[in-house]
C-alpha cells in the first residue's frame, strides 16, 4: 500500500520530483486535456510496469535501457492510435505530446528505479500511484489555468460572467508562472507539516 500512496503526495512526480515537465506545461490549457494526458500516462506506466517486472530476470543488464525504451514506445503507439481512433478531437489538441510520452522521464525513471527491482504486484501499485499522482497534478494545474483564463473548470462556469478572462494564463508564459506558483505553494505547505 505504501507503494501506491507515495506517488500521490510525498513523491508526487510533478510537484516534488519535477519529472515529465514538458507535457505538464503544454497540455494543461484546460482541465479536460490534463485529464486525458494523465490517463494516457497511467496506461503507459501500467503496461510498462507489468512487462518490465515480468521480464526483469531475463533481460541482461547491458541492454536493459534499450529494451525498456522499446516497450515504452510500443505502449505509447497503442495509446496514440487508440486516442486517434476514438477521441480525434482530444488527440488533435494534445498533438505531438502523446508520442512524446516515450521520452517522458517518469516512465523510464520508474522502469529503471522500481519496476526492474520489484515483483509485479508492487510494480502495478507503484505505476498506478505515480500515474494517479501525475494525473492529479495535471488536473490541478489545468484547472488553475482554465479557471483564471476562462472562468471555467471542465467547461463548467465557476466565476460569474463579468469575470475578466485573464488571457495570460492560457498562453505559454502563464503555464510557467502557474506551475512556479503551485510548486511554491506545495513546498511551503510541505515544510509546515
Amino acid at each position, binding site marked *: 500500500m505504501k507503494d501506491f500512496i507515495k506517488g500521490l503526495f510525498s513523491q508526487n512526480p510533478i510537484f516534488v520530483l*519535477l*519529472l515529465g*515537465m*514538458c*507535457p505538464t*506545461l*503544454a497540455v494543461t490549457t484546460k482541465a479536460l486535456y490534463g485529464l486525458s494526458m494523465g490517463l494516457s500516462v497511467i496506461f503507459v506506466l501500467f503496461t510498462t510496469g507489468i512487462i518490465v517486472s515480468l521480464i526483469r530476470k531475463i533481460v541482461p543488464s547491458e541492454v536493459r*535501457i*534499450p529494451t525498456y*525504451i*522499446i516497450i515504452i*514506445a*510500443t505502449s*505509447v*503507439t497503442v495509446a*496514440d*492510435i487508440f486516442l486517434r481512433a476514438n477521441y480525434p478531437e482530444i488527440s488533435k489538441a494534445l*498533438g*505531438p505530446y502523446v*508520442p*512524446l510520452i*516515450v*521520452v*517522458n*522521464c517518469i516512465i*523510464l525513471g520508474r522502469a529503471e528505479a522500481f519496476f526492474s527491482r520489484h515483483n509485479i504486484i508492487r510494480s502495478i501499485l507503484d505505476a498506478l500511484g505515480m500515474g494517479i499522482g501525475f494525473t492529479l497534478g495535471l488536473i490541478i494545474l489545468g484547472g488553475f489555468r482554465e479557471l483564471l483564463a476562462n472562468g471555467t473548470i471542465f467547461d463548467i462556469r465557476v466565476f460569474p460572467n463579468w469575470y475578466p478572462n485573464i488571457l*495570460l494564463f492560457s*498562453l*505559454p*508564459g*502563464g*503555464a*510557467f*508562472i*502557474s*506551475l*512556479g*506558483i503551485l*510548486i*511554491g*505553494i*506545495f*513546498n*511551503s*505547505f510541505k*515544510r509546515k507539516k
Partner: protein
Amino acid sequence: MKYIGIFLTATFVNNMVLHYFLGICPFLGISGALSTAIGMGFAVIFVMTLASVSTYLIYYKILIPLNLPYLQYVSFILVIASLVQLVEMFLKKYSRTLYKALGIYLPLITTNCAILGVTLFMILKKYTFLESIFFSLGSGFGFMLALLIMAGIREEIRGNDIPEGLKGPGITLIIAGILALGFMGFSGF
C-alpha cells in the same frame, strides 16, 4: 529566403523551450551556470541536426514505402538513442577536445524531449529535406539561446532573497514564464 524564415521562426517565434515546452528537464537542470549551458547547447544543436536528417531519411525512404508509419515512434527513439552512442564513440576516438567539451552532455540528450519533438514536428509540418535541416538548426539555436539567457539570469539572482518555498524550481519557472512572455513579442502580439 524561405529557409531563413524557417530558421528564424524556429529560433525565436516557436522557440522549443518557451513555446513548445520541449526540453524543460535540461532547461531546469543545467541552467545553473553559463559554462555548462554553452556545452549542452552545442551538443543539442549537433545531435538535433543529425537526428532530423537520419529520421527524415528513415521515415520517407523506409517507413512510408513499406507502409509502416505506425512504427514511427519506436524507430525514431531507437535511431536517436543509437545516434547519441555513435557520436559519443566517434568523438572519443577522433576528436579529444570536442569530446571533452561535449562528452558529459551526450548521454543526457537521449531523454531530451526536444530532439524527438523536432523530428515529430518535422513530419507533422511536412517539411522537405532542406527545410528540415534549417528547422532543426533553428530549433537547436533557440534551445541554446533560452538556456543561455536562463543561466545568465540564474547566476545574477544567486544571492537574492527569495521566499523559502519558491527557491530552486519555483523561481526558475516564474522567470521562464516572464521570458516566454518576452519571446511572444517576436510573433507580433
